[in-house]
């Protein structure tokens, strides 16, 4: 069996169509999109088209789309830019305990600058508790930043209810990190009701190192990358034309194929979840069963450590992630699972499987068989498991 990639929440390959679209912009159409001559005009045409593609995909106007160097940069910009722009009104920010580090750690940074941040708790399935938002929000709250869908457990947040609460507080901005949601579920800024929204190209078969921030027309936030006139003077740096052209094509395709893509992923995902739950004892599905990204499964395996599972799957040619790729260098078990109240031992044994376009039923079945062997092997090695021998006879 060829190598199997079940880590699409970490990144996706650039699609053939997107790659073909990008290629000329590396060296034929190499002009600086800000130059005044024909070379520049050729490049800016590609950038303009991409801006329209992104705008159409998320239901906004092209001049509300700003390209950035990553989803991380867009989140940095949204959080810091909003906080700085609104500081005369107040210094209170609300976010959730399960955000991506690019939101969480910016909030922590802002706390050091004298802002006050409320980190909303989530329920056991990974949904922000809207009543807690109601309790936390106040007249001097300037920003609520809550992701659309969580990258580790796939929980799709109750964005409509969240917006209902925020709407009551005039001048409070609503930022949504939609990085994981594009192509999997409908993302429409009007429907969500947000003022700011973050995207990242490499999560939907576009290139890495390019993202976009939607900034509602009429809203002014502070700049993050300060330089010249690029991105209507809002984000400095020579535009990465091939990447921008790539994210434009990728999002157009992602939205056009969304129904088919999400059905495909969900079929694989549901088969995987069913088989694992039926064939491997003592497993726990982390995250919800409804309102979950169609391509995400996350399991904890009792009595064993995630790293052992991850490496053994890797040796078998199957790529998955434990917790999130960004935090795998740290020893702390996933902050998302901890916020959901998952037992700390089970947090250690959690693995995320995220499916994508090239995956097949055969791959899912093969992975389940491998996983069964690996879990059995590692459990036999586990002192915790052996303490539980009473209930483990038939494993």
């Amino acid at each position, binding site marked *: 069996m060829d190598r199997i990639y079940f880590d699409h929440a970490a990144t996706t390959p650039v699609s053939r169509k997107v790659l073909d679209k990008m290629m000329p912009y590396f060296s034929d159409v190499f002009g600086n999109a800000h130059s005044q001559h024909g070379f520049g005009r050729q490049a800016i045409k590609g950038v303009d088209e991409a801006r329209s593609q992104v705008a159409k995909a998320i239901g906004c106007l092209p001049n509300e789309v700003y390209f950035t160097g990553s989803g991380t940069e867009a989140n940095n910009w949204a959080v810091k830019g909003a906080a700085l722009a609104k500081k005369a009104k107040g210094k209170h920010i609300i976010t959730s305990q399960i955000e991506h580090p690019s939101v969480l750690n910016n909030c922590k940074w802002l706390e050091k600058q004298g802002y006050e941040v409320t980190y909303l708790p989530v329920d056991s399935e990974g949904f922000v508790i809207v009543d807690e938002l109601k309790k936390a929000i106040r007249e001097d709250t300037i920003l609520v930043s809550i992701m659309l869908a969580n990258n580790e457990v796939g929980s799709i947040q109750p964005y409509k209810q969240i917006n209902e609460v925020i709407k009551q507080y005039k001048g409070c901005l609503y930022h949504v990190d939609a990085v994981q949601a594009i192509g999997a579920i409908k993302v429409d800024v009007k429907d969500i009701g947000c003022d700011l929204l973050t995207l990242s190209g490499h999560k939907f078969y576009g290139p890495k190192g390019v993202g976009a921030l939607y900034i509602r027309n009429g809203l002014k936030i502070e700049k993050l990358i300060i330089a010249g006139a690029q991105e209507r003077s809002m984000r400095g740096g020579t535009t990465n034309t091939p990447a921008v052209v790539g994210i434009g094509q990728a999002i157009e395709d992602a939205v056009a194929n969304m129904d088919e893509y999400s059905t495909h992923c969900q079929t694989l995902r549901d088969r995987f979840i069913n088989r694992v739950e039926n064939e491997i004892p003592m497993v726990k599905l982390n995250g919800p069963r409804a309102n979950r990204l169609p391509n995400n499964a996350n399991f904890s395996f009792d009595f064993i*450590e995630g790293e*052992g599972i991850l*490496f053994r799957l890797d040796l078998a040619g199957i790529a998955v992630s434990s917790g999130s790729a960004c935090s795998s260098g740290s*020893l702390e078990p996933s902050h998302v699972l901890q916020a959901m109240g998952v037992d700390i*031992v089970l947090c*250690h044994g959690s693995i995320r499987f995220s499916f994508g376009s090239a995956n097949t039923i055969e791959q899912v079945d093969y992975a389940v068989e491998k996983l069964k062997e690996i879990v059995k092997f590692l459990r*036999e*090695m586990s002192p*915790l498991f052996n303490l539980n021998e009473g209930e483990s006879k038939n494993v």
Partner: protein
Amino acid sequence: MSNGYNEKVIEVFSNPKNVGKIDNADGVGTVGNATCGDIMKIYLKIKNNIIVDAKFQTFGCAAAIATSSTATEMIIGKTVDEAERLTNADVVENLGGLPAQKMHCSVLAEEAIREAIKDYRAKQK
């Protein structure tokens, strides 16, 4: 694999030796890791002051598995006193190094061996 582990560590992790438990062990040591919360259990079979068999079980990461496999191999055939002097640095050296953030994992095996020897000595009295 871009996980920072060298090939030897991956090889040992993939085919660990001395996994399991020893029934009627002469010494058993269980320790928890203060840094990450992981757990290690070592069993020793000792005859005439020589370690004739050693086995381990762990709820730990790949580094914990590789270091315990190597540590148990290193003490089999040694006297109890020699085994007690084995340090995590010896084990890491034998494995050709560990990523910095994984050094603490190697302490588990060393400590569990010492605990098992303590248990053995207590039983001798």
